[in-house]
């Protein structure tokens, strides 16, 4: 069902925030957005319970493997282009190429991870979400609930009950 209304509860404390999330879930409100100034393990723990693990690591793995492959391909293929002998070494000598492969593994792996954070985290975010409040980068927690208009009151009650110092829609 399409949510048509947003309710935001602003909290000052971690435990109250966690409480709110629990209660809302209990009430069957699942479409929550939790704002925190810093990552808080309790809150994360609460949210992650119902979510699959982040897919970032997949990006990293693919990036890293691509790097390794590129490293070896580039070195070997380019050495075979001219087959120049230096210092009596065979044109294709793997040990030195391992270094290149290693560096590219790290490089592409790292870039992929960063990319993942952007893509999965929907960044950059061009328009601020309606429920966002600048205090969330300072010292306040926010729990935004998307729900059907007729459920707004019950949500508000849950939030205030949990200890929200401010509730607005």
């Amino acid at each position, binding site marked *: 069902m399409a949510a048509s209304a947003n309710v935001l509860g602003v909290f*000052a*404390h*971690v*435990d*109250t925030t966690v409480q709110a999330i629990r209660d809302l879930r209990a009430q069957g409100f699942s479409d*929550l*957005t939790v*704002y*925190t*100034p*810093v*990552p*808080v*393990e*309790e*809150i*994360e723990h609460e*949210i992650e319970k119902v*979510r699959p693990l*982040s897919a*970032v*690591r997949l990006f*990293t793995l693919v990036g890293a493997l691509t790097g390794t492959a590129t490293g070896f391909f*580039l*070195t070997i293929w*380019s*050495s075979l*282009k001219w087959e120049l002998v*230096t*210092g009596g*070494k065979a044109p294709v000598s793997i040990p*030195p190429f391992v*270094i*290149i492969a*290693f*560096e*590219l593994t*790290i490089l592409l*792996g*790292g*870039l992929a*991870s*960063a990319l993942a*954070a*952007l893509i*999965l*985290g929907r*960044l*950059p*975010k061009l*328009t601020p*979400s309606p429920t*966002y409040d*600048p*205090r*969330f*980068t*300072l*010292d306040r927690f926010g729990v935004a609930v998307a729900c059907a208009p007729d459920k707004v009151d019950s949500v508000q009650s849950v939030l205030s009950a949990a*200890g929200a110092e401010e509730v607005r829609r």
Partner: protein
Amino acid sequence: MSTLPAPLSTTSQATWADVNRDVIRTVSMPGDRYFAWMCLVALTLACGVAAWAWQIWVGIGAAGKRTPQMWAMYITTFVFWIGIGHAGTLISAVLYLFRARWRTAIYRGAEAMTVFAVITAGLFPLIHAGRMWFAYWLMPYPNQRYLWPNFKSPLVWDVFAISTYLTISVVFFIVGLVPDVAALRDSSTGIKRKIYAVIALGWEGSDQQWRHYRRAYGLLAALATPLVLSVHSVVSFDFAMALVPGWHSTLFAPFFVDGAIFSGFAMVLVLMLPMRYLFDWYAYITDRHLDAMAKLTLVTSLVLSYFYICEVFTAWYSGEHFERASVFAKATKEYAWAYWGMYFCNCLVPLVLLSRKARVNTVILYVVSILVLIGMWLERFNIIVPGLGHDFYPYTWGTYYPTVTDSTIIVGSFAWFFILFLGFIRVMPSLSIVEVKEVLPHPLKHAASHGGHH
């Protein structure tokens, strides 16, 4: 005892709001003293640039290089700067994985130092090259004639190692900055706000953003960790892979890595102590932090001393005439001052940190750090210049004399580093808002319910 004025708030029980305030304070309009410093640094940099221009014009001969010292102060300083970077990565990546909570107060500055140090180091291969306008030939770029770099050359390994290191450090650095910049955005107004808004990428700290962010950050840290060991190992290969007596040694990789971290920590202290004083961050960079860093410096120093002994021992024990002659020449010939200066700065001086008093005494710490930096520069100088000056072939043995040109360029490189750093601390949070908050006690209503959590 510290000559610094008694800190305003020595309590580490600052609230989250304090953190925002204390950090955001630092990016306010700077004062005249700051501008004075900036001018001085900029002027020095200008001299350096002029010297480089002159060198490009008349040729690398303008620098004091010669046969046999075809490498000299440029490579010395290159290795020096690369080394500086390492502490930053160590603090931000390795200590992150080890959950060493004290790192949070210093890691932002350390990371900035890393990025700028690597950028500075990156200049030197260019400055050093006889035809710098063709330096891009070291890059593997597709071209019609299939002319590719020689992947067996340690210099090409350098290209990859350093560009990777730089990229990863920069990414890691920026990723870490995003939430803090968001905080800056929310607390600033006008054009500043707009600019920060762009850099913050619309960060809101929603759970959606945090979960991927945290995961990515962790993985980046995991990837950056091997770099701490690999980058300087590769740099050390420039020497270890060569034939030159005193260079051709399996000792070099760990030897260089340790030295790098050693010098890096010294540089961190050199940068952090003044910031702590000027920004009044005693609440965040406490004696505990100084103590920890001093300990790390001490440990790396002791390890380094061990390597020094190994170096001399292997030279003697190998019975290799060239190796022995080389060490003997370093210790007794025209560069002896640098050799013994190195031992003094890197092995003896840090021993004062055995005393806890010294470890938390900012003045002593500062002096030690400066000496360590000098010592580590001398170490690289000793490897390169006297090493080459007394190698296999007696016919060409000779003494290298610095010229005005190369000396000016070296000094200029320091100016270049500091202009970047000074610039940074005035526009960006040089203390991590988010991570400092993280380690502060989280605001709880019912403290009991979560008492004794981690």
